[in-house]
């Protein structure tokens, strides 16, 4: 039965409307994954050198032991961010004569097929074989591997369990975050007794008496069964996919209300963002980019080179435009037919997008004003790139939106969700990032940096002033493409 489930899942993946269409995308994904894997392997082969460099006064194995627990703590935090609950929709199977245990087992096993499961082994195995095996022998190696397996399994099922609990009760999330922050602070302030101390104690003990590792394995197995029992007891549709049952009241956005019909459309899209999982997390991630400045501006050398001057403000001011805009109009795919048949003017439809972009870019601009602490020039560059984004980036993004036919399911999670990704998103990045540099660099090479900056400002301003002209072109193209867009968005 597990195999049948697996086959069904496999088919569901390859036959879904969004996968398997473009070979280029698949190749790109494969290359990206291989690249990540290569990075891990590289790291792992030189782990002994890295450790020797970081802790020159200790021997390599002791340092390795002392960081292991950090790894698992870090793993826990990352998993909490990224790991997803297994997504097989169990609905079609629940009423059939299939034992609950089988369904639950399948859900548990399939969840293990993820990068998180293998990465600690990729990361440690070459090091262990290279350094630990010659010094301590095979038994020690196996003990360490068993311990890694145990703790990794524990983390895996703990996060699954936590996320399911958290769906029903948000206090679990708070408790977890407090616990993590607590461990972090404790570690930071009491360095003598920090986690690295416990980590080395623990793993040195395992090296001396390998059967201690069995304890970790037991921990992992116990967590598996806790998660198993919980899932088995709660395999009811309403409990697996909880909709918060609290009463919802209407929301108003007074800021956009004054813009008439355009404002209504923008308010509609704001609701779309705040009431659906994926756009919400996309926008939240976009807003995180306003901390980019802390990376670039704190180093005076970086702050004055093109990366700091042009790229960083471009990205901070345009974060929403690029992260959210790249999937347009896919966000509205579930009701795109409704938009077409209702009395919505295509001009208003596009103007609402401009309004939305302006709103978020203005927010980014206001929120990043404190960076003026690093110099007035930074504020000036922020303003110039703000103009640029409103004038030019918006046009680029909307041009590509007219060529995007990929449907998006709003209720799915944000991270590592490839639904709705197509060639259009990859291509979009090229003009978005390159054009500003193409304008700025020639001036810079000739020694007129300020002229380059002025050129960006002027072109951005021209873009804003001539917006209606471009708008008419976009609408014309949209009216030609709308059948194709609507067909791609329809779910049949």
């Amino acid at each position, binding site marked *: 039965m597990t195999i049948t489930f697996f086959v069904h899942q496999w088919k569901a993946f390859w036959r879904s409307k969004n996968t398997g269409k473009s070979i280029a995308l698949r190749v790109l994904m494969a290359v990206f994954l291989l690249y990540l894997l290569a990075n891990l392997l590289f790291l792992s082969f030189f782990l002994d050198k890295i450790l020797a460099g970081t802790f020159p006064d200790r021997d390599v194995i002791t340092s390795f032991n002392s960081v292991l627990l950090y790894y698992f703590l870090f793993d826990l935090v990352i998993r909490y961010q990224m790991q997803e609950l297994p997504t097989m929709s169990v609905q079609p199977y629940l009423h059939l004569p299939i034992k609950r245990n089988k369904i639950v087992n399948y859900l548990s096993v399939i969840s293990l097929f993820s990068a998180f499961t293998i990465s600690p082994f990729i990361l440690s195995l070459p090091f262990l074989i290279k350094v630990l095996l010659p010094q301590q022998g095979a038994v020690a190696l196996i003990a360490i591997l068993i311990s890694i397996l145990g703790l990794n399994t524990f983390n895996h099922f703990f996060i699954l369990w936590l996320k399911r609990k958290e769906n029903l009760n948000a206090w679990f999330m708070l408790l977890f975050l407090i616990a993590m922050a607590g461990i972090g602070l404790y570690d930071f302030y009491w360095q003598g007794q920090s986690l690295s101390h416990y980590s080395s104690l623990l793993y040195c003990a395992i090296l001396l008496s390998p059967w201690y590792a069995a304890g970790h394995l037991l921990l992992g197995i116990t967590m598996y069964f806790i998660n198993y029992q919980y899932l088995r007891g709660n395999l009811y549709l309403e409990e697996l996919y909880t*909709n918060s049952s*609290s*009463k*919802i*009241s*209407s929301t108003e956005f007074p800021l956009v209300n004054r813009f008439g*019909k355009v404002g*209504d459309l923008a308010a*509609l899209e704001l*609701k*779309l963002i705040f*009431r*659906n999982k994926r756009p919400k997390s996309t926008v939240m991630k976009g807003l995180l980019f306003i901390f980019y400045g802390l990376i670039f501006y704190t180093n005076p050398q970086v702050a004055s080179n093109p990366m700091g001057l042009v790229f960083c403000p471009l990205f901070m001011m345009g974060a929403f435009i690029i992260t959210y805009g790249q999937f347009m109009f896919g966000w509205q795919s*579930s*009701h*795109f*037919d*409704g938009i*077409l*048949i*209702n*009395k*919505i*003017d295509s001009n208003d439809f596009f103007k609402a997008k401009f309004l939305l972009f302006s709103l978020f870019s203005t927010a980014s601009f206001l929120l990043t004003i404190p960076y003026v602490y690093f110099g007035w020039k930074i504020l000036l560059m922020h303003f110039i790139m703000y103009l640029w984004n409103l004038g030019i980036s918006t046009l680029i993004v909307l041009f590509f939106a007219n060529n995007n036919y990929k449907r998006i399911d*709003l209720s799915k999670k944000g991270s590592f969700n490839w639904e709705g990704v197509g060639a259009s998103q990859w291509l979009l990045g090229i003009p978005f990032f390159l054009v500003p540099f193409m304008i700025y660099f020639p001036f810079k090479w000739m020694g007129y940096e300020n002229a380059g900056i002025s050129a960006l400002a002027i072109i951005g301003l021209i873009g804003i002033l001539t917006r209606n002209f471009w708008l008419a072109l976009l609408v014309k193209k949209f009216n030609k493409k709308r*059948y194709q867009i*609507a*067909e791609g968005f*329809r*779910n049949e």
Partner: protein
Amino acid sequence: MLKIKDLKKVYGTTTVVNIPELTIEKGDSIGLIGNNGAGKTTLFRMILDLIRPEKGEVLSNDMNVADFEKWKDYTASYLDEGFLIDYLTPEEYFHFIGGLHDQNKAQVDETLSGLSEFFNGEILNKGKYIRDLSKGNQCKVGVASCLLQNPQLLMLDEPFANIDPTTQIRLKGILKELNREKQVTLIVSSHDLNHVTEVCQRILLMEKGKIIKDMQTDSNTLKELEEYFSVL
């Protein structure tokens, strides 16, 4: 009201809609019937300019629907949940639709209060998003949003399929009244022959993309249709 000329839609090698000529007068009430795959929904979508025909055109008040958007002022339709904005509450959705027709909230609320019997206490002030409503209740929202627009042309694709018997009876009453009192042109599809013959005065029967029967409803129509479908 509506004129269809030489309309054709092909997917791959199969012709899904092929209508050489069809005229719908103002005040007509049309029942569109036919088995699955006959091309009813595709026809609806072409009338609403949602898909582009291979050939031919749909004229609404003598204007091609693909070139002018005037028809949106007087046409209301509900084909499926894809027409609803599912992350809104029903009230928000109604206000949005009303706003598109320059109605303010008070006007919308007044129209809605007249529909309270149709809603049967299931739609308003429930504090739920449309996506959390049942299919039948979503259909009610879709139909109500059509009524809100005071249309001259109303198109519904299988409106009776998911709603409860009480609502079916009320909806039939509403449709008949709209057609009789306000001369609203109706196009309604259904698999239930009783419903269409009761509401509509003219029946269009589709098979494999073609309209093979076009008749006025009389006392024999139901029997005739039942015979057609049972030998098929």
